[in-house]
């Protein structure tokens, strides 16, 4: 299990990266390496050229703006985990990061790497789906932004063009004191979830839900927003039986099935994880709201 031969490039600017992507044969971008390196060691991928992004300037940042936060593509999961700004403005991400891999992988893994790898069960794509994040890509024609909902185009396939680079993520914050919860079911701590659910809720003074976002990960080919459930949640209070009833809709998700988890099992878990996420998010919203 040793990587195949390749040429190695470590450009210092985004422009150089894009230029290399354009000119090199069969290139592969190396971010944190927590997914690519195992695939290289197992020779599941055989690139002729590795473009290492770790020395590219200006891709690691967590910045606040008027509407939320901007995160650089090469920002480490560890930096996100320990960021007070994330805790304050996007607590769902903090919740999710506690469940991403292990200490050693978060020390190397990046948000851009996780989004580009786009494992349907990964936590950060689900967070982006929940928050209607905007993905920033740079290519030869400059920068473009696409909503996360258009980002996955197929199973583990992002909309990034072959000569483009994911440089950042823009997340719009919810109202201070909103409810949030990231719940997942994994066989062991730190594993990719079999199924996860991310919930965001805003409530009014009377405890009625005024805004809702519910995302299920690990069931479909990419994280799925449960729009119908979200609509039905508006005006509801935190009645668990009502949540249970609404979450039954998760059985309709077009689900992956394999020897590790059948599609029925994933759908079943989706109903349970969604309900638990809503219950927890509601409790948090009420406590603060």
């Amino acid at each position, binding site marked *: 299990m040793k990587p195949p031969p390749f040429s190695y490039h470590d450009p210092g600017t985004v422009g150089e990266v894009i230029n290399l992507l354009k000119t090199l044969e069969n290139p592969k971008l190396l971010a944190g390496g927590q997914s690519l390196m195992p695939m290289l060691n197992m020779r599941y991928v055989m690139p002729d050229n590795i473009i*290492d992004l770790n020395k590219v300037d200006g891709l690691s940042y967590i910045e606040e703006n008027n509407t939320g936060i901007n995160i650089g593509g090469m920002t480490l999961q560890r930096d996100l985990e320990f960021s007070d700004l994330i805790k304050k403005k996007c607590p769902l991400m903090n919740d999710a990061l506690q469940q991403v891999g292990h200490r050693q992988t978060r020390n190397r893994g990046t948000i851009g790497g996780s989004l580009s790898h786009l494992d349907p069960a990964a936590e950060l794509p689900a967070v982006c789906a929940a928050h209607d994040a905007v993905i920033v890509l740079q290519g030869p024609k400059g920068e473009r932004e696409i909503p996360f909902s258009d980002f996955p185009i197929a199973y583990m396939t992002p909309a990034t063009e072959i000569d483009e680079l994911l440089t950042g993520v823009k997340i719009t914050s919810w109202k201070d004191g909103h409810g949030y919860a990231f719940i997942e079911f994994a066989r062991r*701590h730190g594993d990719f979830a079999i199924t996860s659910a991310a919930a965001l809720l805003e409530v009014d003074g009377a405890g009625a839900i005024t805004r809702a976002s519910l995302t299920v990960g690990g069931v479909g080919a990419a994280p799925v927003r449960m729009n119908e459930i979200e609509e039905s949640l508006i005006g509801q209070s935190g009645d668990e039986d009502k949540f249970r009833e609404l979450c039954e809709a998760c059985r309709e998700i077009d689900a992956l099935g394999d020897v590790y988890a059948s599609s029925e099992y994933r759908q079943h878990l989706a109903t349970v994880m969604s309900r638990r996420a809503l219950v927890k998010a509601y409790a948090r919203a009420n406590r603060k709201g």
Partner: protein
Amino acid sequence: MGETRKISLTVNGKSYEEEVEVRFHLADFLRQKLGLTGTHLGCEHGVCGACTILMNGKSVRSCLMLAVQADGQELTTIEGIAPSEDEMHPLQEAFRDNHGLQCGFCTPGMLTTLLEFLEDNPDPSEEEVRIAISGNLCRCTGYQGIVAAALDAAQRLRDAKGV
């Protein structure tokens, strides 16, 4: 031999300048080029944690990094943990006293992971310790001795600091 590069780095306080094949992962570089065979390879796909080392004080899996990426970095491996030839680090002592190892193969990764963790969290609960080493597999101990050793080491380190 494929494409190579010259890199310079510091390992356990010692500076090295070496020519390395760009496809070598960091663990192979440490083991084969520098002869630091204390860092072990158990899976080479980033699950077992045996190859964990510290890079600039942070735990990383050395099988999931290319050696060229360690250029200019400061690394610590298991060989660099003890303060001297005659003395062991309190974490190493605690592992010995609590039977935190049997075959000893996962031990390097356990020690490096816990060194960083105890730095971040000097007074952890048992559950926090278990989560901290969730990315390190051990097949001998059932983890009980390791968890006990980590808690014991945390106490020793706090005592030493007079906390």
